[in-house]
């Protein structure tokens, strides 16, 4: 990460829409070749996997647990459902879904990163959650499942790390059953300017220092802050979902828009 020159300009001053071409994409504030992004993101998550849960609690003051609960509540999951927890990482959503879908249902925890998947698998097995969970290492852009397989697909704090988000959304659309829904939980744009400023200060000044102290990796958390700013805002993501074929799309801002939950159906 350190070998690539960084642009440290806050997101609000950046023109994100026109800063990439067909062959380039964002990695935080850097513009890089698309092929490079997968390995760079993989590097970040291999580095933070073991401290991921602790850092999540620290960085969000534990609120990420409520954001994830909100997602579960909004999913309308029922016993017997088949759920794909994409970019599921350390398995927080999978753990809850596994209990809610019961013996008749199934949850697939998929992540592109083997380190994250291993941490998730160990954690869930330690908690005795084994009977209805499968683990798959998969790229969201090329999901290795048959069409019309899942009732629910969730991707929590993962979409912003995907190189080609449109392709990933189309891939998700294809594996959903008709009537199925996608829930995207992701950092977004705060609704109020004061909150936006405070959030910017926290993300670029405090967060990397916390990463340095706890996970001994400040750069990965600098990337986290930058990637959040480069992620499409609420309405842009909603449009992207509609372009991928999703219907009845909507979003709900949580904690003043720091995070948003997008939902769309396949009919």
């Amino acid at each position, binding site marked *: 990460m350190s070998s690539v020159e960084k642009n440290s300009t806050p997101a609000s001053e950046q023109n994100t829409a026109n800063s990439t071409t067909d062959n380039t994409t964002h990695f935080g504030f850097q513009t890089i070749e698309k092929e490079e992004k997968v390995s760079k993101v993989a590097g970040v998550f291999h580095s933070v996997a073991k401290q991921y849960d602790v850092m999540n609690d620290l960085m969000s003051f534990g*609120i990420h*647990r*409520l*954001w994830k*609960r*909100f997602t*579960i*509540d*909004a999913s*309308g*999951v*029922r*016993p017997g459902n088949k759920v794909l927890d994409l970019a599921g990482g350390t398995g927080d959503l999978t753990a*809850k879904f596994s*209990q*809610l879908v*019961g*013996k*008749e249902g199934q949850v697939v925890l998929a992540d592109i990163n083997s380190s994250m998947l291993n941490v998730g698998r160990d954690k869930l097995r330690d908690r*005795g959650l084994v009977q209805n969970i499968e683990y798959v290492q998969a790229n969201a852009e090329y999901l290795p499942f048959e069409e019309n397989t899942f009732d629910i697909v969730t991707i929590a704090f993962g979409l912003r790390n995907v190189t080609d988000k449109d392709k990933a959304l189309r891939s998700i659309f294809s594996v959903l059953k008709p009537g199925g829904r996608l829930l995207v939980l992701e950092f977004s744009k705060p609704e109020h300017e004061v909150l936006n400023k405070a959030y910017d200060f926290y993300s670029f000044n405090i967060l990397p220092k916390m990463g340095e102290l706890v996970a001994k990796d400040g750069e990965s958390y600098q990337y986290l802050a930058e990637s959040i700013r480069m992620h499409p805002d609420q309405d842009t993501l909603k449009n992207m979902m509609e372009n991928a074929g999703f219907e009845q799309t909507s979003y*709900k*801002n*949580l*904690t*003043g828009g720091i995070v948003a939950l997008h939902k769309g159906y396949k009919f």
Partner: protein
Amino acid sequence: MLANNRAVNISEQLMIPQFLCSAIELIMNKALALSNKPVSLTNIENKTLTLELAELNFPISVSASNTKLLVTSTGAASDCTLISSVTTLRQLQAKQQLTELIKQEQLDIQGDIKLAQQFARIAEELEIDWQTEIAKHIGDVPTHKLTKISEKAKSSLAQLITSLESDVTEFLIHEKKLAVTNSEIKRFNQAVSKTQEQLSNIESRLATLVNHSNEN
């Protein structure tokens, strides 16, 4: 209506339902783990009990897996739903009240009532030795002292409540004459019964007289 929508929006933004459910789930699972008598969830595995309280604008659903309870704020896929209020739930502690509360439409049960009974039985089966649990964290001597203090406080509070109740009763009945004594109520009830009896006698005599006049 607008104010209600606003309240729902604020509650959603602050994730109050999720916070509350998270706290309830933590307490329930902690209680299950602390129980001296092992509690089995096998009978209620994969079943969901939902509580819809008038005071809350969201449901509270409790689902059981083989070892844990999961609390969510979605009413979907519930096997049994209790629709009521916090006040009514407190009255439910007296078992004989159940039928009466349903009749008075203060409690509505939709779905499998046996599931609600199974959940209640699990709560009754819990046996938690609080002293041992507290002692693990603060030690034996402080726990003993804390127990003594809480017992003393409990007894003082009970005494205070009894004395307040009797003082208030005295004041209302004898000084302000706003309430009546039990014997007065009994006398009044007897008088009402006597009047009822006399009234029914008069009614039957009137009916006889009407019959006679019709025959003539």
